């Protein structure tokens, strides 16, 4: 009796453990992918079967229907931002919610676009559609970088923590400071410029591309050309090279972080802007009814 209970507990625990390691994309054997695919299929088929006059657009009964579904979906999808702060298990687990968020969000491409009837223009209605597409595309980007980049991020760290990277740089700076004592003014200035440049003062573009054309360490190295260096200069040059390499690791880390995070800086503000544009879209349609 007791053993039976134990084994069932074990089975339950195993099952639980399995689900814990299941990606939200594959949640419940891709239940929400299937639901979304069926939804898209219904919409596409009905779009071609339903005959509305004079042609498809948001103002036919079919267009209003798709528009209502789309607007409700958008409202629900944007609630993930609130929902995710509240972790729960089971049927309405956050994983299930996220899975539905991703796949229903993708289905919105079809629903929203069929709602327009491909009548796009320079107006608030198309603004809402464009923002919706921007949100979805940024979400697709987010999922793909989450799948690809964390490995590269972890490889780059080489078992160092971020704190250690920063401290490594500080240690090199201290050594540079004492090693540069015997140097003349110009060389000392180059070292000061290098050590005083804040590694984190980097703009969006520099972070995304990892290219730093105004890197003071790189410039300082130019003040110590190979071949014509005395012992002190040689030492400083060697420390500067170390600094450059440590800086490289920090910058690669920043680059991967930026690539991983940038989508949210589009996804979230664009979602809020979309909610505003959607409100303006719906109100304006009925205002000029």
């Amino acid at each position, binding site marked *: 009796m007791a053993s039976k209970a134990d084994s069932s507990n074990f089975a339950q625990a195993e099952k639980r453990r399995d689900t814990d390691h299941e990606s939200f994309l594959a949640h419940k054997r891709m239940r929400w992918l299937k639901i979304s695919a069926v939804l898209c299929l219904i919409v596409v088929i009905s779009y071609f079967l339903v005959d509305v006059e004079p042609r498809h657009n948001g103002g036919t009964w079919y267009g209003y229907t798709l528009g209502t579904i789309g607007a409700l979906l958008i409202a629900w999808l944007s609630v993930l931002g609130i929902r995710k702060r509240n972790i729960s298990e089971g049927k309405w687990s956050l994983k299930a919610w996220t899975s539905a968020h991703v796949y229903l969000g993708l289905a919105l491409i079809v629903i929203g676009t069929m709602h327009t009837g491909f009548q796009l223009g320079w107006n608030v209605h198309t603004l809402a559609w464009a923002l919706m597409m921007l949100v979805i595309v940024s979400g697709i980007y987010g999922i793909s970088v989450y799948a690809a980049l964390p490995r590269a991020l972890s490889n780059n760290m080489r078992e160092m923590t971020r*704190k250690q990277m920063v401290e490594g740089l500080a240690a090199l700076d201290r050594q540079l400071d004492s090693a540069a004592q015997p140097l003349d003014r110009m060389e000392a200035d180059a070292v000061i410029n290098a050590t005083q440049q804040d590694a984190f003062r980097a703009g969006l573009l520099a972070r995304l591309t990892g290219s730093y054309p105004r890197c003071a360490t790189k410039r300082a190295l130019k003040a110590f050309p190979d071949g014509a260096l005395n012992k002190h200069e040689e030492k400083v040059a060697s420390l500067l090279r170390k600094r450059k390499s440590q800086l490289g690791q920090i910058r690669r880390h920043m680059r991967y972080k930026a690539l991983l995070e940038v989508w949210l800086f589009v996804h979230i503000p664009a979602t809020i802007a979309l909610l505003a544009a959607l409100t303006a879209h719906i109100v304006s349609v009925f205002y000029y009814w």
Partner: protein
Amino acid sequence: MTFLIRTIDFTASGREIIRDRTAEQKTLSIGRASENDIHLPDLAVEQNHATIRQSETGSLIVEAAGTMGFTHDGRKTSAATIDPSTGGELGFGAYRLQIAQDGDGPPAITISQVEAAPEADDNLAGFALTAALPSKRVMAWAGLAAILLAFLAIPIYTHLNRSTVTGDYDRAGQVVMDASWSTGALSTAHHGLEDNCEACHVEPFQSVRDETCLTCHEGIGDHAEIPRQNTGRGPLSKGDEIQWAIADMFGKEGQGSCTTCHTEHEGAGRMEPTAQKFCAECHDGMDSRLTDTALANAADFGDAHPQFQAVFHPTLGSDATARISLSKNPKEQHGLKFPHELHMNKAGGVARMASNIGAKQGYGDSLVCADCHTPTADKNSFLPVDMEENCESCHSLVYDRVGTTFRSLRHGNVAQMQADLRAMDRAPRRPVTTGRRRPGEYAQGGRYYQNFGRPARSYIAVNRALAPDGVCGECHIPTTNNGKADVMPVHLRDSYFMHGYFDHKAHEQEDCTTCHAADTSKSATDLLMPDIAICRDCHLGEQATQAEVPSSCAMCHSYHPSTVPGAPGKDKGRSDTVALISRKPD
């Protein structure tokens, strides 16, 4: 082996105390225990933590004695090799050992204690993208505010606070930013209203009203009396009933309103023609609902449309008209003899004559339709056939010649024709006397010659002209009018169909005889209008996608009567009514 060990301490007042000593030994031990060469009194350091020795190459090898490691240039490790000339920094607990070498001197190890560094979390935040971008929340609020203000608040505010003026096609509207609300360009006819949304969208949250449309389209009348329309429409289908219920909930005006059939903002160009279903709603099976109607049922041009009925003159010499279905083989009595087949024959006498005089008249080897039928300027239809223009080059009315000039009878006036012929005084006449000749210039051919003979030829010609084989009888049917010889009055029609519109221009790639069977018509009484079967070769109903030209009702019919009865300044204008505009080619 010599090491220079330099210890830096601080006094309570912050003054630096530097102590140098040299150690002459192979290996330096580092640890908390006091017997160590480098004694670091920090609980975080092991009693015997690590050793430093110099390899043959001169570099220093640092190895942890126990399991606890140390940091080398900030990185945790348990063994490190340091080139003293390049230098390096070791960390043990709160102590830092900076390794350096001055020229050929011994490697120097500088020991300093750091204050417990505050957590470098501030620095770590720099790794995240937040450091380089405005916060998501700020961007979100800014976007939200900008959109709501520009696309909602401003248009609504200016709409509510506009001064009401009467609609004006040529004036721009007062509402600001509402162009962003337009779902698409307006049709050509309404293009002037593009920047004046409130001309149609008068009240907020109220659908466009008929009365608003009628402020400009004041000449549009009802298709039929409203009660008759309601009876004719019949009951709604279930789906339509639901749609109308929902539309009613949202304040739509209801069936029969302008916007039911006419949708706007569908893009520039002609307004979309009204869909067939709006007509079929009533005209499909209408006779069962409107039992007194004279109209046959019609729902689809392809399979539910009555045969055409032509308006024509059925009685010879009378201008009375009748309207009869083409399937009843109507015979037209317009009063002319004109077998089309004879004139279009490629071999007969007409063809011979056409080719004889062709160079001068522009004819080819035989006559074709265009030799007699001239299109109107817009090529939609044809000018009436004109005797002088289209017939006379062959059917000459010349009766006399004076020098090099020919004299023609006047067409269209029997009395004038008779007078002309009677006065034909220069025709050669039989001389009154024989064998004698008048003298000088009075003789025949002389300047004062005058013929005093009987005008027999003239009278014969006058009588013969109105005979069936006379010059008039070639085309006209002789008759007597009040005892005098005359011809039957001619009644030719410009159009034969009352309610349908046909555009010849749109069909110009077709031969005339494809629809009008003129080349086989042996009798002038044949009514050469094509029946519905011929149209259906290309035109079928709106839904008939397999047809060459799927055709809705509006392609040929106009919904709105051209005028309100009694409206001033408006007369017949069928081709200008709203419903027709959309199907006339640009």
